């Protein structure tokens, strides 16, 4: 954990995984476009470079293609045009092993216990229950769910389910974490709590995070950098650096600086939506 906010901590570059070059991007999207078979242009000429250790938010109105972009990065969809580079990856053959994805819904298997759900990514790689036990338990401790290993998802609250989902994402020790509006369905109290937890996990585990959200406040609180997107077709409208030190806490959330950033981002988002309605018709 960084004790003092240095210049590196501000940009999030201090907490990079061992062995990766901090200045090089983890993933680069070049002129990525995506057109669905029904003719909808979800993304048009999207350029984005995410540096190692960064916390980047994709912010935009619904229909701006932010989820589509995330799926393309995850390898769950192919871009129609353009391409993706993984410059810093040694595993050029299959970068997927290094990525975790957190969906908007907890997306747990209802028939499996919390342990079974968190174990899943390891099990799919052939790691037995016994061999995975320490890792799974550590992941559960990380999200504050020790002692719930044998519970079934239906016994948990919405916030706890989301924690299980996060534990499942971090059990593989990914270097890149993709989150698709993970807290959108939660109440504000749980949302704030999970925001803090994600930030401290990000700092201690050295992830790179790409976070999709439609909340201005959430994106300002969490990110190094916010990519404001416009819709129809989905594209980058503006990039805003959030130059505030980590660790961030309730003090930051109530600071004038935070409010200022929120105003700036909010304005950018409004403009992006205006542009959108101007071109759509």
């Amino acid at each position, binding site marked *: 954990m960084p004790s003092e906010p240095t210049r590196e901590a501000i940009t999030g570059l201090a907490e990079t995984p061992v062995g990766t070059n901090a200045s090089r991007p983890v993933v680069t999207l070049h002129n990525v476009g995506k057109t669905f078979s029904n003719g909808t242009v979800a993304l048009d000429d999207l350029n984005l470079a995410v540096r190692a250790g960064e916390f980047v938010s994709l912010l935009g109105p619904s229909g701006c293609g932010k989820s589509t972009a995330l799926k393309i990065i995850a390898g769950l969809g192919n871009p129609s045009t353009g391409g993706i580079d993984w410059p810093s990856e040694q595993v050029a053959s299959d970068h997927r092993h290094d990525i*975790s*994805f957190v969906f908007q819904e907890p*997306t747990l*298997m209802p*028939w499996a216990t919390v342990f079974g759900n968190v174990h899943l*990514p390891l099990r*799919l*790689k052939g790691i037995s229950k016994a061999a995975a036990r320490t890792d799974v338990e550590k992941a559960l401790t990380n999200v504050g769910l020790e002692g719930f290993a044998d519970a*079934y998802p*239906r016994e948990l609250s919405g916030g706890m389910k989301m924690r299980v989902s996060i534990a499942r994402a971090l059990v593989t020790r990914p270097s890149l974490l993709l989150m698709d509006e993970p807290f959108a369905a939660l109440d504000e109290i749980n949302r704030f709590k999970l925001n803090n937890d994600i930030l401290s996990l990000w700092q201690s585990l050295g992830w790179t995070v790409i976070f999709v959200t439609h909340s201005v406040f959430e994106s300002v609180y969490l990110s190094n950098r916010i990519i404001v997107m416009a819709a129809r077709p989905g594209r980058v409208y503006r990039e805003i650096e959030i130059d505030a030190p980590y660790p961030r806490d309730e003090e930051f959330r109530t600071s004038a600086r935070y409010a200022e950033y929120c105003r700036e981002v909010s304005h950018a988002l409004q403009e992006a939506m205006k542009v959108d309605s101007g071109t759509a018709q």
Partner: protein
Amino acid sequence: MKKIRSANIAGSTGADPQELARARAAAREKIGRYVVPFVILAIAIFLWDRIVVWNDIPHYILPRPGLVAKTLVTDWAILSESLVNTLKITFGALAVATIGGAGLAILFTQSKWIEISLFPFAVILQVTPVIAIAPLIFIYVDSTAVALLICAWIVAFFPILSNTTLGLNSADHNLHDLFRLYGANRWQVLWRLLLPAAMPYFLGGLKIAGGLALIGAIVAEFTAGSAGSGSGLAFRILEAGYRLNIPRMFAALILISATGIVIFMSLSLLSHLMLRKWHESATRRER
């Protein structure tokens, strides 16, 4: 879990008379659920007996329930042998329907083209009344037992096939993505995602198929019986009918009904045991 427990405690301290009354009503309903049907059944049997006595109906038209019970005991040697034969066909057909229906459903999910090619045949088999197909089957198949099995299977397998297919297709799309992201192979997707997701649907289909297998077996036995072979309960009913042995007809009928009830209850229990840990249908909700 903790939340549920504390809600429970609040209920049992009984500060709220309305809640207490509700709890008492629930307890009454729980006992009544088992007692009332038996009481009604007893009254119905009693009325049946009285109607026969009051109207002086001869036993070869409508026997008294006592006589039916007596026949059940005296004819047990013949009836039990037929019962075993019917059970063999029923469970044989159910087993083949389960394996065939679930297997075909799995095959369907592996290849759209197999589904497109074979599903119409499954529908044709299902919508054509088995009683219309049975005589042909008895002509082409030499062994009566095998022919009976085929008839019962045709009736029983469709609900398993269609329910399991629905279940296999109903797995969460995001979970599909997740499995893909973590590089799961086909077998892992099937075993760890599709089959568990399909389980509640499959068990629902199995519950229907259990009853249908019995119906299929009985219908096929009627067809075979009229052709002069077979010794299941349906054949006993036909035979007893020719001889105007009405009490034995009733006795065989009771055995068939009892078999159906036992099959349904066993499959319901199986379904409950398989799903009680996680599926909404099998879990009790506290309010």
